[in-house]
């Protein structure tokens, strides 16, 4: 959990300024052209935009009273996708995690009575009013379900369902009709595999990720406690998430709230991989496509606290690849930066809502890398990655196709 900024004093002073937060981990580097790992620094170049600048200089100076809040300081700490690349790189050498400090800076800013900069103020205001980041009412949370079998609709009764497996849909289908398909695909895959699954429908609440990322720690706690109580009361055993933001929040942030969670959190790609292995999903239809796969940060290096790969946890890297390799006709070509070294899509930490230009620039860079593989399609599984990368493809008139992974699974069934 994010602590008070002053509690990170040791880390802030001891940032060695060795620039490991800026680059792909040395042993993993394959190509000098794809060495950058920090989107913000790569875009703006000044060290203030690097994690070492934010943690080792600005946070440290704030703690020691050397600097005061300014518009520029707010811009620097909020213009960041919090993609966790710096946490991975710095973490495996010094065991420090700069994004925690950056989030503590955000929390301090709000506590000091400041508003987040750019479009984030409106974003936070909307979130507080509607309890979701898309200015939609709870009744609209079921709009995405049109066309789905009635068996799933039974689960809409929310607390009325007796299922032990809950599909937590997330807020993203509220964004716009184009986002609904991802939720429909997820539900369809589970139904086709014969999973007895329920959803919360109108009763579903935001996981609290947007509040936490904006620095509104108190609101996040309220979301978390309410959700944990609801899930515990329902007696669910397995919480299946679609959106990686939700997954990361349930998986790494909820346990630190201090409430006992009587359920397991799994991501639908883990679950789908398991269903394929168990023979409950039979992928027999060829989908002839050369693809490359983009690892969402929230399924990877920031899907848990700790350093990915240590044995304590590893990102959800193999399940999506296992699934792709199970679909007949799919050929997977990796980008140079993959898994823990993946380049963020640019939508991390809701960056599109605050700093669209940076989010778009970051996505453009990822599309360039995807294209360099020679793949004809880019596959991922995150509504935010898909929105940002998909928009980059359209904006640039790129010929690359964009798929969510479960769409391909459904094509292969």
């Amino acid at each position, binding site marked *: 959990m994010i602590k008070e900024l002053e509690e990170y004093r040791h880390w802030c002073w001891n940032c060695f300024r*060795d620039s490991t937060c800026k680059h792909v981990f040395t*042993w993993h580097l394959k190509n000098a052209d794809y060495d950058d790992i920090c989107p913000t620094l790569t875009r703006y170049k000044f060290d203030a935009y690097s994690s070492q600048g934010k943690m080792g200089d600005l946070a440290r100076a704030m703690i020691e009273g050397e600097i005061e809040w300014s518009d520029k300081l707010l811009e620097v700490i909020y213009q960041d996708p919090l993609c966790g690349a710096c946490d991975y790189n710095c973490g495996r050498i010094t065991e420090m995690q700069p994004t925690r400090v950056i989030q503590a800076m955000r929390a301090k800013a709000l506590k000091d009575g400041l508003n987040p900069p750019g479009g984030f103020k409106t974003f936070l205001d909307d979130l507080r009013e509607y309890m979701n980041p898309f200015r939609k009412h709870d009744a609209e949370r079921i709009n995405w379900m049109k066309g789905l079998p009635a068996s799933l609709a039974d689960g809409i009764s929310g607390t009325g369902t007796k299922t032990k497996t809950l599909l937590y849909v997330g807020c993203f289908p509220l964004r716009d009709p184009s986002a609904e398909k991802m939720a429909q695909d997820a539900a369809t895959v589970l139904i086709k595999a014969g999973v007895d699954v329920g959803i919360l429908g109108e009763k579903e609440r935001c996981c609290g990720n947007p509040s936490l990322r904006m620095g509104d720690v108190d609101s996040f706690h309220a979301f978390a406690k309410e959700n944990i109580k609801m899930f515990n009361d329902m007696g669910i055993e397995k919480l299946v998430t679609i959106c990686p933001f939700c997954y990361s929040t349930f998986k790494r942030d909820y346990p630190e709230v201090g409430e006992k969670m009587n359920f397991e959190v799994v991501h639908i790609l883990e679950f789908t991989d398991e269903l394929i292995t168990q023979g409950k999903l039979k992928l027999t239809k060829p989908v002839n496509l050369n693809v490359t796969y983009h690892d969402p940060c929230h399924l990877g290096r920031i899907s848990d606290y700790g350093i990915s790969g240590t044995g304590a946890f590893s990102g959800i890297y193999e399940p999506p690849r296992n699934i792709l390799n199970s679909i007949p006709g799919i050929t997977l070509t990796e980008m140079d930066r993959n898994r823990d070294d993946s380049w963020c899509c640019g939508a991390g930490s809701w960056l599109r809502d605050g700093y669209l230009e940076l989010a778009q620039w970051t996505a453009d860079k990822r599309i360039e890398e995807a294209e360099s593989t020679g793949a004809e399609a880019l596959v991922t599984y995150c509504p935010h990655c898909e929105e940002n990368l998909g928009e980059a493809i359209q904006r640039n008139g790129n010929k690359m196709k964009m798929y969510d992974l479960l769409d391909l699974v459904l094509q292969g069934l």
Partner: protein
Amino acid sequence: MIEPHVYQAIAAVVGPDFISDDPMVRQTYSKDGAFPGIMKRYKQDPSAIPDLVVLPASTEEVQGVVRIANRYGLKVIPISTGANMVSLCIPSEPGTISLDLKRMDKILEINEDTMTATIQPYVSFARIQAETMKRGLWNGGTPLAPGSCGLLSNIINSGTWQSSLAYGVGLRSIANLTLVLPNGDILKTGSATIPACGNFWCQGPGPDLKGIFEFCNHGGMAVIVEATMKLHPWAGGEWPQETVYNRPPLPANHRIYYVEYPDIEPMNEAMYEIAHSGIGTHLNGASNGWVTGMTQQTEELAEKRWHEGFFPRHMIYVINAGISSTRQLDHEENVLRDIVKETGGKFRDDLNEEMATWHGDAFRDGCGSRFQRRGSFSSIKLGCGHIDNHREFYERSQDIVMRHSHYMFDEETPWVYIFERGYYALFEDDTVFDQSDYEEASSARDMNIDGFVRTPKQDLLDLGYYYMEPVLTIYSPRVGPNAKHWVTQIKNVFDPNDTMNPGKLVRLEQ
């Protein structure tokens, strides 16, 4: 405070997006992990914060910026990654521009015929290694610092690599340099100065100027904007990927050996014999303290194993490369085994697993700087000389340990680098300290000063003050005042206005 018209003039050179006088931006160029920078932050010394940060993208832009700086009496500190251990890139007076070279990050050419690479200053070890290794070449070494460090800045600050046995100190790698002098003129060195000659050779017409600008010039006389580096054959094939966390595979066609010795003397004898036998690319002496600090996954585990004495107190490691064939590897192994047998060493193959980070770090450093986890590190004592100095260096280190409450990280034996087939050795004793604890940092600093002051020995080049204050760093105090006069005269020739990184090489009296 930079006058608006000066700001505008520089902005016209680099573009408005690549210049900033914002206090938040400037703040991030005011501290590093070395004592001078740390102490300035504790004093909240405003002179440590530059007035301007500028990011040029080309040689022409560097020329433009330094000309303006020279004209208006501003100071210029070139900085690439800035991860030096001497606060070289921290300003020391008002009116300073931090010239951040991040945008000059191109590998301009890798010439497989001449075995050279031409690079801009913000090219890291990792990037040049990734590109050259694909071609069966490499730059010949890596520092015990992250591979994200700038290759060129490491070299010109006398970067030292574990592979110095075969490839020498980093400076041996430079074929030639292109520099922007403080007046904006371009100076080229080496064969590149001869039209159509090529840039593969370090000597050009007339006296060789390269040395003036490479060895610890500390950005004090020019901005290096381009360099051609020598490359060496790489026997390792495709760089092996880490499949198990913290356990990178050893590159192909290489063998690594850990040999334990009961004491320093037989260890020295072995290092001398191995170095002069012509085998191996890497030869170093290591202690329990060093090894635990660098190889263990967590600080907690490293501390535990250090105190337990998990690794030998006196150990050498050797890496052999099969550059011509696997028969070379077999032959070199036989030679090594004979030497180890004759010198009473014991092979410790059982350490391979626990020291596996070395399989990567010896060639392309990823985790070597883990020993800084406590906060920072400082060399308490550094010395260069014949291998036989090892014992006396060790005893002097122990003497320092006895006089201070702060500890030495590698109390058992200094870290030893063997250079250039045993021509000389570098001994290094270090400490680590928590930067956030003023008392601890001060105590480490006192120990550091003591370590460098109490050093006289006739045949040992003490690298005095190197980790304390960069002025005339590489020479110990016993060099005498003439060194300062000599360097001052050179500085006066190239930088009479003291524009470049003032106070770091030598301070000119204005």
